[in-house]
């Protein structure tokens, strides 16, 4: 049985039956920041670097035309720091006002490709930002890391335990593509997904919304661990950094199927129909995978969101940052109206399914566009 008496499978915040119930506060996104490296690497260039002749039409297969990759002096830490500063530049608060700082990077490259296991990354970021008062914590949940951070902060803000916090991640993962390029031989290779990865940092500041103001309507998460071993990443044997081994077709199949069930649950809890969502932002694995998932959703729901966001074509899969890099891009381009309702859908190794539904509201006005 669920806490509230219903029977939802996901851990839920908000909605008809989610925690913490009557009298709670509303949390909202105060600002979204991003840090995208200048350097670009086209798929043609990457595939020209493979050790073996593969004949893989990666761009046609995935829709990934190019990705951005780190340059000299950039790594997971600097990308996270840049994104955090960008978010603060669009917010009404200073770093010193943050009660909590959650760092959610999968990659932990600091000073190049060394992987920093300890100290936690939040220690350096707190100091660099001047967020001394914040409770700092590193969490790790594959590509669902930042969404997990949002889930945690949303809960703390709704309870009134904190006023505001930041979720931040820097992903330097392009070396997985370089490592994969040395080993991939066929389109069935379990490192194929590594060739779609790009580098990026992203940050989201969450705060308590003024009374009556819109914000996050519902957030839900669950882990379907029978699929936990479909994607594994660990230090590489072939070179510095990491390699990732994915049963890509299988994880996409089960993730899409399970997403239907969880989407239905969250939409029901929020009292919403699928076509009341203005923008669906799914995890960005490949354009083809997103389009196939959208077709399945349309078939199962009989309706679709008004827009489905795809950024993977120009940014690649930027792991835990994808939703927030996309949000930042659309905010900067002035594509959201204040009344737009956005659904963030996280499907990540674990298998993690995370969903956040929110109204854009004041966020739209923070990026220099007149609505």
């Amino acid at each position, binding site marked *: 049985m669920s806490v509230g008496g219903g029977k939802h499978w996901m851990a839920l915040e908000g909605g008809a039956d989610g925690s913490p119930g009557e009298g709670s506060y509303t949390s909202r996104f105060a600002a979204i920041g991003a840090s995208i490296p200048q350097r670009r690497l086209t798929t043609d260039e990457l595939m020209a670097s493979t050790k073996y002749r593969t004949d893989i039409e990666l761009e046609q297969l995935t829709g990934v035309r190019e990705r951005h990759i780190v340059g000299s002096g950039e790594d997971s830490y600097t990308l996270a720091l840049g994104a955090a500063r960008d978010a603060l530049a669009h917010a009404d608060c200073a770093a010193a006002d943050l009660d909590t700082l959650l760092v959610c990077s999968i990659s932990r490259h600091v000073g190049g490709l060394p992987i920093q296991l300890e100290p936690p990354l939040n220690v350096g970021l707190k100091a660099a930002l001047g967020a001394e008062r914040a409770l700092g914590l590193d969490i790790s949940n594959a590509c669902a890391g930042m969404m997990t951070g949002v889930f945690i902060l949303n809960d703390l803000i709704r309870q009134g335990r904190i006023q505001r916090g930041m979720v931040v991640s820097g992903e330097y993962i392009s070396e997985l593509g370089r490592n994969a390029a040395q080993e991939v031989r066929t389109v069935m290779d379990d490192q194929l997904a590594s060739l779609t990865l790009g580098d990026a940092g992203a940050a989201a500041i969450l705060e308590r919304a003024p009374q009556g103001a819109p914000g996050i309507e519902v957030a839900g998460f669950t882990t379907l661990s029978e699929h936990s071993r479909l994607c594994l990443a660990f230090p590489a*044997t072939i070179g510095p950094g990491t390699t990732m081994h994915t049963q890509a077709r299988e994880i996409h199949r089960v993730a899409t199927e399970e997403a239907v069930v969880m989407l239905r649950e969250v939409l029901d809890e929020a009292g919403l129909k699928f076509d009341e969502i203005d923008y669906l932002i799914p995890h960005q694995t490949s354009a083809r995978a997103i389009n196939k998932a959208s077709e399945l959703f349309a078939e199962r729901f009989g309706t679709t969101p008004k827009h489905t966001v795809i950024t993977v074509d120009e940014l690649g899969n930027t792991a835990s940052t994808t939703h927030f890099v996309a949000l930042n891009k659309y905010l900067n381009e002035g594509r959201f109206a204040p009344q737009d309702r956005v659904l963030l859908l996280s499907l990540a190794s674990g298998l993690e399914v995370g969903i956040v539904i929110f109204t854009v509201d004041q966020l739209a006005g923070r990026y220099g566009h007149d609505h």
Partner: protein
Amino acid sequence: MGTIIEASATAEGGSFPGALGLADAAARLCLQRAQRTADEVDLLINAGVYNDRGISEPAIASLIQEDIGANPEPQPGTGQGTFSFDVRNGGCGMLSAIQLVDGLLASKTVKLGMVVAADIDPEPGVSEGFGFAPVGGAVLLSAGDSRAGFTAFRCVTFPEFAGLYQSNVVWREDIRPGPSDQGRNVLTVEIAESYPEQALECAESTVRELAAASMLDLGEVDLLVATASVPGFAAELAKRLGVAAERVALPSPALARAHTAALAVALQSGRLEAGTTALFVCVGAGITVVAALYRGD
């Protein structure tokens, strides 16, 4: 309503079972002691840092969830499933994870949370400076009906001492036969000689701040659970704080160098009696200190 510890457990076995095996065993024993089933756990957080292959994805918690059989398959309409993720806060990870569970229990987002941790040397003979005991630990938490349980947390970082404790995976040139003829990734752990003393300093100042904010007389502490991944830390901290030696939860000498599971290890030697006050202090690289007060149920 406070967050209470229903049960705790540890698992040893050398490096043979691997970190995952140790975490799984500790989790199962913990559930058994609490007479709970795995399906009842709706939040599972892993706080271990050093696992079998240095896995960075997925969250180790999801692997543990599958292994112990905590709602691995979705069954919508039948109740709540399990949400799993990792905390990577070094030697403070277990107490940091307990703080997160405390928040999600208080909001009734979840009803039963488990924190699990285990560390092993991923490549004995290759890793440099790894000296932690291979042990797993688990703590099971729920919301109590009374005011007992965790009542306050304090987390402070001291970035000026970050260099005293560094752990990285680095690429080293290595011409020995192996998967690559160019080199290999090597885990390196470097803990400065001055770290234990500095950890004590940072812990003491954090505890005194917590005590002042909570109006606690440190002489009232009935049980001190203190960890810093170095032997002798708890006893030395007790002296500084004026806590009597017999009130310190001490691990067995073999587990004195337990790392992320050290909190669960220490709990095996101390009892959280009803009405008593326990002080938890975990110190890790950063330097990070997490301290918490617990009122026995």
